[in-house]
């Protein structure tokens, strides 16, 4: 009884719980289909959580895929299709954010960060080019204390430039 009930439930669930989205009809032209697929990766499914329409099982994503395919088939360029999507859904729809006032910091930030860090390092290394003084015997003794004189196995090639880690 329970089993029959479950199966009935499941059949309902498997077949009717989601309205079956219109199955994807790939474009006949392979080059056009490839272009459409590349676009799918950059278009966000507007009702999903951080999913591209390429990946989303949602019905809305299927509709959006059809829309993109139609535009590709109609001969519109990638840039035109992106513009159409943005006009319809807003900037949010593209995973590539636009470059404009308000987002230039986002685009230039990483490079600025890397250059800043590089500049800091260069300025420091120029200022302190000289070699550090070796530890004094007193310091060596105290270091040994800190490390609680845990005996360290001597590395087999202590003379080698790379002696561990």
């Amino acid at each position, binding site marked *: 009884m329970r089993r029959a009930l*479950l199966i009935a439930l499941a059949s309902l669930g498997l077949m009717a719980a989601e309205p079956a989205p219109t199955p*994807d009809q790939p474009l006949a032209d392979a080059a056009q289909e490839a272009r459409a697929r590349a676009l799918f990766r950059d278009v966000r499914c507007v009702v999903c959580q951080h999913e591209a329409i390429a990946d989303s099982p949602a019905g809305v994503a299927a509709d959006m895929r059809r829309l993109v395919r139609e535009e590709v088939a109609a001969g519109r360029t990638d840039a035109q299709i992106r513009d159409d999507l943005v006009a319809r859904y807003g900037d949010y729809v593209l995973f590539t954010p636009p470059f404009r006032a308000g987002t230039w910091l986002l685009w230039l930030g990483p490079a600025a960060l890397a250059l800043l860090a590089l500049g800091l390092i260069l300025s420091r290394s120029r200022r302190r080019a000289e070699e550090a003084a070796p530890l004094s015997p007193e310091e060596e003794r105290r270091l040994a204390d800190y490390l609680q004189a845990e005996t360290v196995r001597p590395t087999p090639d202590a003379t080698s430039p790379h002696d561990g880690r």
Partner: protein
Amino acid sequence: MIAELGAFALALALALAALQTGLSVAGRLRNSPVLAGAGQGAAIASALAVALAFGALILAFATSDFSVANVAANSHTDKPMLYKVAAAWGSHEGSLVLWCLVMTAFGAVLARASNLPFGLKTSAVATQGALSLLFLAFAVFTSSPFQRLDPAPFQGMSLNPLLQDPALAVHPPLLYAGYVGFSVCFSLAVAALIEGRETRLSWTAWGRWVRPWALASWAFLTVGITLGSFWAYYELGWGGWWFWDPVENASFLPWLAGAALLHSAVVTERRGALAGWTVFLALLAFSFSMLGAFLVRSGVLTSVHAFAVDPQRGLMLLAILGMTAGAAFALFAWRAPMLKSGGLFAPISREGALVLNNLFLTAAAGTVLLGTLYPLILEAATGQTISVGPPWFALTFNPLMIIALIILPAGPLLAWKRGDLTGALQRLAVAAGLALLFALAGWALFEPKKALAAGGLMVGAWLILGALAETAERVRLFRAPLAETLRRARGLPLGAWGMTLAHAGLGVFVLGAVVETSFKVEAVAPLSIGQEMRAGPWAVRLDGVAVVEGPNYIAEQGRLTVRPAQGSGRAKAVTAERRFFPAGGQTTTEVGLDFRGLDDVYVVMGERRAGEPGTVATGQAWTVRTYWNPWARLIFLGPMVMALGGVLSLLDRRLRLGVGAARRRKAVAA
């Protein structure tokens, strides 16, 4: 009864954490080993109390005690035992107890560490106690998983079926061990700032003390993230393994900071230099962990990973983050100028290479942070909504990382203090040549031909071969008699093997990521029973479809055969399912995976639909999606090899947590 015991144990743990903090502070101020010892005792007791609370929670889930609200909301009698237990950390409340458990357990290990000097240890135990205090208070006062329901419902609401998966059952504990493990690095850093020693030499020792904690946390985090990624790959059903989803980024941030910390701590330990920077990274890694907790639990993000959203809790977490990170960085700003880091160095040296590594890792972390938070901040400030997704990260994060990876193999070959770049490059010439050959072979063999992919293959091979070249150099492979090489290999410290493995593992990951991303093939077709479809070099035939019954689901199971489309190769049977969970009314996919060497053939059953007219007698067809994911194995194998490298380094006797060191010394003396 068991729930009340759990609630009591959690409250007791909170009181004990308060005692731990108070006694340790008093012990430090009065220089009293007795008080400090009592604080350490409280730390251990606090961990035991949280363990008791966690045990009670697991018991409530295992026995399906639906009078406990959290169990009723997240479990179901039909679930297999593994997922009943795993549901204990499947909700916000339960996972917070797990967070506290890891935090107090690491605190207990810190309290047992015998190789730390009195002042530093007492301050660190006090700081760890204060952190535990805050998170336990958060758990007890706002997020207790032990609330009762009256009347108790007859049945539970069940755990999200997507999460009912072995990899995901163990993913949170490992991830948390990583996230929260960094709290000890944080505490040691705060303690070092409080103790404020000004001589270079104590920093050398501090670098050694902080490294094993950073290593352990980083290794846990690596495995945790990889398991999560693997789960997404085979459970979500579209073959993706990294989406630059904000929550993934939240786990990646502490990983990047932790990786930077590992490397910078080496410089601090070996050369007494970069002390301030290492302290900063130790503070940063755990601050990123807390930021991640805030992002995931507050509802500011929408993501598959986000817990039930609750702005109130978000505010509390933001307050905790502000208090702890704010206080720690303020302390840092005040004390950092007093840190005499000394240990000056030339740019071309081992330490110079490690500084460069840190530059790239932190710039990468900054990039991920920017990409994650920017849309939130922009929306809050101007109301404009944008999406920052994979294309942005490919243009910003990837170039930074690629430069870092190209430089990487030279680092370990440079000597401390003054390296010989020309010499290092000469010793890497063979590796570079082989990597180039590998890339050319890849260029010739993979279709379609992609120059970028060939470049990626070269980088991956360069990392692996470069790491091996360094080890070969150290054991004088082919330059000395074999016996001599073996003797040297045996004598090589475990830490050196660990480094080689970690760097080679990174190369393995790069190879997998490059090939999978560049050459994966996706095919969708409606298949009737007996029909076949093609995906790249593979042919997939639908043999039959049956309805099968699982413990808490009903599935439509497709039986399929995967075989090479051309030539004779072994045909393999796979099953792919669409599962329906009546308890939650949800449908999930269970992917059919055929492992072909390094490749995956990945089959997903779609909906049943009316067949094309006149094609099949039964008039039925199923949408079947097939992906050929070349070298996908390596994407998950690489990080595991990296984590193994971390574990090997941890086993190096020079890098012990210090627990039991006293016992070992005694044994030697006796």
